[in-house]
């Protein structure tokens, strides 16, 4: 809090009585008996001064000095060295207002009262007068401090993002109309179930305008919401988001196509996290709003990837490992983005970090997840029907089931072995009762005593022998001159022998007793050893018991161990029983922990924020966002706010989130007019926004492509990457129909009426007119038939729905394989990230005006021509395209024609049939 101003005086403050004080004081104390004397009040000031300061307010020449329960009205002396106390009074409400309005707190080394001026020491001080302390007259609280510039900028930025979220939702909604789908019956299905989410088949009253992937909800119970997984005639199969009580589904009713509120809700939460400062990456707001990046510390180049990376990839790998906040990796087509991400993910996991791999599409996430080694604990979240077969094993349902089964399998033997121990085993209890091993100390003492006793016997027997020897010596000399004397000596010594023998006898008895004691202990030891050995064998199935030897110490140690171990076996038996019983329950119970303990989580960006994916409480050390150039900023934020740092991998020279044309069409459609800021935010990815503001240290280009033949790669490099993209692909022989990897089939040789485009009103999104081109469609169909015969992977990319439909109809009837056609025919958007041996691109537009429509988005062309591994065949009217009204496209196309002329093949459309016929003849 902001408190009152504090003043520290270096010298004491002295008070003397003013001229009228005595009279005033008498009056005041008569009315307010609690008032102290001025001397006492000044004394109080000393303690106030040291505690918090003495409050002082100003009133012209007067100053009010506040003690605990009174206020002194004082004036300064002319010299300013002393205060005259003129009045004393209670602290009234008026004083409280003055105090609140502007008091200062004063501390000084001394607060002294002096009766006369003459006793005032030199060098004392008072406060200079100040403007009168006036109670404020304002009645409304002063406004608090407003947001600072940085906060204001953040709020503005987030408000703009909120607007784009709403606009994107409207664009999405504009492409889908609400529809009711009445159904006549509901039936159970035999759908694959990996979670408890219900799957039911709804028999529609009439075929509905709905396809797989659409979200529907029950009109009568909107909380029952699911995704259409199949439409078979009039039978619609719906996989619900959660477990569903079948009784809540009426046998007849209506389904409603859901408005997709999930995406805007998830995006809005991410924006809120950014605005509220709860992003796990605290630098995010600074980076996004101010474009201010913290310096990058020098990368640790000791880390090695498990697989070889080229120079650029390795540099990205090292910088990403040490990036404190964010790193931007630009990966043009075929430059090994996925490989780099995989190696980075492995290295991060090895360092114990939790990694989020997110992208715009499930396919891109799966590409990374599929390549991670099995040792990495991976969790893949998302709609299972959209995941690749290979990664479905990593969904939470599959993971939990697998873990549960593995545990049950691995613990079955242990549970069986421990089961008998769950209650006391009579034989073991009896053995334990009989297991009373001798105290090793006692046995040692007994053995020591036996040795001592044996030694005593030896000594005594030696004494007996010595005495007997001496008797013999005396007896031998009895026959001599002094035989009589020696006879007496011999007798005497004989008595000594008897005494020695008696002593030896008792020593021998003692020794025998000692021997018996030792033997008894040994016998006990042997008995206990035998019991221990048997017990040891018994417990060997449940643990690795200690060895037991036939020594008192070993048996005693075993005894101590087994007495601790048996209750533990009981505890373990109970524990393993409970564990297995727990795991016999549905595996859903493991979901939260398996999510929490995952090392890598793979998800679409939006999936990270979807509640049912259980990621709400999970923080990540690093978020790696692939395809970031295609992801709107509001969506990119979803993974970014959940991780402490981020690596964005993408290419802003390929398709952006929404192509400008789409946004402008929507703006026209909704009569919102042109809105530059909105168009910019909607059509620019977070990646593009960041990479254009990031310093060089924070961005890196993967500059070696391994997909396209050099002839195509060089053109792409020159036109879209400033010549910084090199080709590392070995030169391959192109498919035999043409001599070069790059072919331009020019339809300008055909009559204008034959080669012309046809307009289809309202055929595209937002009722924008579409176009088809019968001549180009025929040429493309011929080419596809040829490549299909040759067994080549092919793709046909055209810009308009009408042209797609025309080619699809022809190909389906010619090839007889609808799924093959679906997988390989489409607009550019469907192919970003993909690759094929041969790509056929049809421009479609052919008119004398030079109108090119969608083609004006040059990044579409970049994506289209950079998908091919062996050959790119471009089909188009060079007259129209080379004279396009759109200057950038015109320049690019002319460069393409020139490049194809020098490094590829430019053919007239009329030549194709002959070439194909010849190829057929020659058996190609």
């Amino acid at each position, binding site marked *: *809090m902001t408190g009152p101003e504090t003043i520290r005086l270096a010298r004491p403050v002295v008070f003397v009585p003013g001229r009228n004080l005595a009279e005033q004081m008498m009056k005041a104390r008569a009315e307010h008996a609690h008032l102290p004397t001025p001397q006492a009040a000044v004394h109080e000031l000393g303690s106030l001064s040291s505690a918090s300061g003495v409050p002082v307010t100003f009133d012209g020449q007067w100053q009010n000095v506040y003690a605990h329960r009174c206020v002194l009205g004082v004036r300064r002396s002319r010299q300013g060295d002393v205060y005259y106390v003129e009045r004393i009074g209670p*602290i*009234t*409400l008026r004083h409280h207002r003055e105090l609140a309005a502007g008091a200062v707190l004063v501390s000084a080394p001394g607060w002294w009262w002096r009766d006369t001026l003459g006793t005032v020491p030199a060098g004392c001080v008072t406060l200079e007068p100040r403007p009168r302390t006036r*109670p404020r007259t304002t009645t409304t*609280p002063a406004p608090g401090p407003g947001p600072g510039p940085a906060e204001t900028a953040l709020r503005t930025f987030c408000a703009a993002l909120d607007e784009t979220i709403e606009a994107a939702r409207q664009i999405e909604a504009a492409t889908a109309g609400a529809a009711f789908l009445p159904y006549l019956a509901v039936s159970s299905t035999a759908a694959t179930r990996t979670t408890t989410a219900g799957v039911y088949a709804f028999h529609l009253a009439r075929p509905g305008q709905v396809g797989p992937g659409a979200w529907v909800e029950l009109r009568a119970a909107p909380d029952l919401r699911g995704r259409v997984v199949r439409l078979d005639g009039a039978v619609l199969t719906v996989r619900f988001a959660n477990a569903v009580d079948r009784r809540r589904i009426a046998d007849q009713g209506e389904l409603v196509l859901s408005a997709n509120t999930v995406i805007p809700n998830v995006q809005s939460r991410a924006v809120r996290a950014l605005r509220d400062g709860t992003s796990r990456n605290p630098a995010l707001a600074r980076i996004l709003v101010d474009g201010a990046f913290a310096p990058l510390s020098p990368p640790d180049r000791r880390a090695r990837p498990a697989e070889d990376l080229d120079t650029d990839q390795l540099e990205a790998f090292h910088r990403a490992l040490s990036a404190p906040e964010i790193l931007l990796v630009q990966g043009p087509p075929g430059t090994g983005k996925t490989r780099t991400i995989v190696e980075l993910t492995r290295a991060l996991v090895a360092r114990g970090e939790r990694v989020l791999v997110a992208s715009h599409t499930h396919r891109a996430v799966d590409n990374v997840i599929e390549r991670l080694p099995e040792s990495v604990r991976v969790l893949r979240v998302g709609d299972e029907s959209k995941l690749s077969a290979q990664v479905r094993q990593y969904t939470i349902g599959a993971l939990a089931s697998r*873990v549960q089964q593995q545990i049950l399998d691995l613990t079955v033997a*242990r549970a069986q072995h421990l089961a008998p121990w769950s209650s006391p085993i009579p034989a073991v209890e009896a053995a334990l009762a009989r297991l009373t091993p001798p105290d090793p100390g006692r046995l040692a003492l007994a053995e020591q005593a036996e040795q001592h006793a044996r030694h005593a016997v030896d000594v005594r027997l030696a004494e007996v022998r010595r005495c007997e020897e001496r008797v013999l010596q005396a007896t031998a000399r009895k026959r001599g001159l002094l035989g009589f004397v020696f006879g007496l000596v011999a007798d005497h010594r004989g008595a000594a022998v008897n005494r020695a023998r008696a002593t030896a006898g008792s020593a021998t008895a003692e020794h025998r007793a000692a021997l018996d004691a030792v033997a008894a202990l040994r016998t006990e030891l042997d008995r206990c050893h035998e019991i221990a050995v048997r017990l040891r064998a018994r417990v060997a199935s449940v643990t690795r018991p200690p060895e037991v030897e036939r020594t008192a110490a070993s048996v005693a140690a075993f005894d101590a161990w087994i007495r601790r171990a048996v209750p533990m076996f009981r505890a373990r038996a109970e524990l393993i029983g409970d564990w297995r019983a727990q795991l016999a329950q549905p595996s859903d119970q493991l979901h939260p922990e398996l999510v929490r303990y995952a090392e890598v989580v793979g998800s679409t960006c939006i999936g990270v924020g979807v509640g049912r994916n259980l990621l709400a409480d999970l923080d990540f050390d690093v978020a790696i966002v692939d395809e970031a150039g295609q992801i709107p900023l509001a969506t990119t934020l979803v993974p970014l706010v959940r991780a402490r740092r981020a690596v964005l991998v993408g290419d802003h020279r390929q398709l952006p989130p929404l192509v400008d044309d789409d946004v402008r069409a929507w703006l026209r459609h909704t009569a919102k007019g042109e809105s530059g800021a909105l168009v910019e935010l909607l059509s620019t990815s977070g990646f593009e926004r960041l990479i254009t503001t990031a310093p060089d240290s924070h961005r890196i280009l993967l500059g070696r492509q391994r997909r396209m033949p050099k002839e195509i790669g060089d053109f792409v490099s020159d036109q879209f990457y400033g010549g910084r993209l090199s080709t590392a692909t070995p030169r391959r022989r192109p498919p035999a129909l043409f001599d070069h990897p790059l072919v331009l089939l020019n339809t300008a040789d055909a009559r204008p009426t034959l080669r012309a485009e046809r307009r289809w009103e309202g055929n595209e999104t937002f009722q924008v007119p579409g176009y088809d081109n019968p001549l180009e469609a025929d040429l493309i169909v011929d080419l596809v038939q040829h490549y299909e015969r040759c067994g080549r992977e092919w793709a046909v990319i055209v810009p308009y729905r009408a042209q797609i439909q025309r080619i699809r109809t022809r190909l389906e009837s010619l090839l007889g394989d609808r799924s093959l056609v679906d997988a390989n025919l489409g607009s550019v958007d469907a192919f970003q990230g993909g690759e094929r041996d041969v790509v056929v691109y049809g421009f479609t537009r052919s008119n004398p005006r030079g109108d090119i429509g969608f083609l004006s988005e040059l990044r579409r062309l970049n994506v289209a021509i950079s998908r091919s591994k062996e050959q790119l065949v471009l089909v188009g009217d060079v007259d129209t395209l080379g004279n396009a009204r759109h200057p950038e496209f015109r320049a690019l196309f002319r460069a393409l024609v020139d490049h194809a002329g020098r490094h590829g093949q430019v053919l007239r459309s009329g030549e194709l049939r002959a070439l194909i016929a010849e190829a057929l003849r020659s058996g190609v």
Partner: protein
Amino acid sequence: MTEILYPAYRAVEVAAGVPGARPLRLLSMLLPVWRVEVATTVREAQPYEVFDRFLARGIDQAGLDTPASLALFFGVEASLVERAVGFLTTIGHVARTDDTVSLTALGRQSVRDGCRYVIKEDRTILYFDRLSGGPLPQSHYTGINYQPHQEQRGFRGLTSMGPPFQAKALDALVGRRDRAAFNLPDGLTDARLESFDMRWIPVHVVETRSDPRYFVFSGATAGRDRHLERVCNASPVFLDALGAEPAPDHEQIWRNWLDSRGLHSVRPEYAASGVLRAVLPPESFGPGAVFRAHRPGTFEPYQQSFLQLWCADERIRTRAAAERALMMLRSGAVRTAQDLDERLHHLGVQLEVRTPSPNQVWNWAAERDDQVALSALEQIF
């Protein structure tokens, strides 16, 4: 502008209704309080999940003291056990030394109680009044419109230039056995002072001739605020400030007030209850008159003083009782028959008329076709 406290006349009405209170004057004040942010530790009991419960049991009961032995025993991948042990370590259940793990006291307690205790830091705001330094009871955490400034129109602020908030006041609260009554439940432990600043409680203070001398009315309770009343009547700062306020010349104030409304012939007079009254003729009340029909018996606050509007005609006072009874019902404030009885009794006493019965109120509502009041009565009975 939103009012920061209910109107002062309601406080006067209550004070006047206290037998022998003899209200003297009225002040609307702002009392200083400390707004103290306190960090505490909360031990939250969460349900165990699967791995964490069994791993903790394994360590506690089965002598499994390494991640490897846990992984082997439970048949779980070592990396998963490592993560789970890491989680248990993070929440303070497991202590790890090199490769050996053991349960902490918190972990053992959790296993024993079968729930996962998690220690969390909680932040909460506590209020301490500045006059006594004591904590405010839980009743003062709702209903009070705490003000961040000392200046508000119509209110006079008390300040205190004493020392800043003392942590020992918080320690004293923590040590109280009845601390839950002061908004610090027992579950919040290890309370630490984080920050503090000042706030002000708006109150109406009615000075009386009774004991206590000052009745205090805040939004915390429906009637008198007994807690703040005790604090204020024992506070030298409060007593000095109010004691030093010059007594208003009540009669002069109200003479002027009545004159300004054209009631020159009316003179304020003291009633037997000690309150100042203006006895007005019956034509002064009702539609088109100076005062509305419900005003007899009500108080008019003005310049620290208040005046009861009165009419000698009992029919006029009875009509006022009817109007006010119906107003109470329309406001939705009356929920039970007992509450209604009490309020009607209070009305009877205040207006010196026979206590209206609920039946009488039904009739009044029916006569006026007051559907809202009728509906309220139906709900009560």
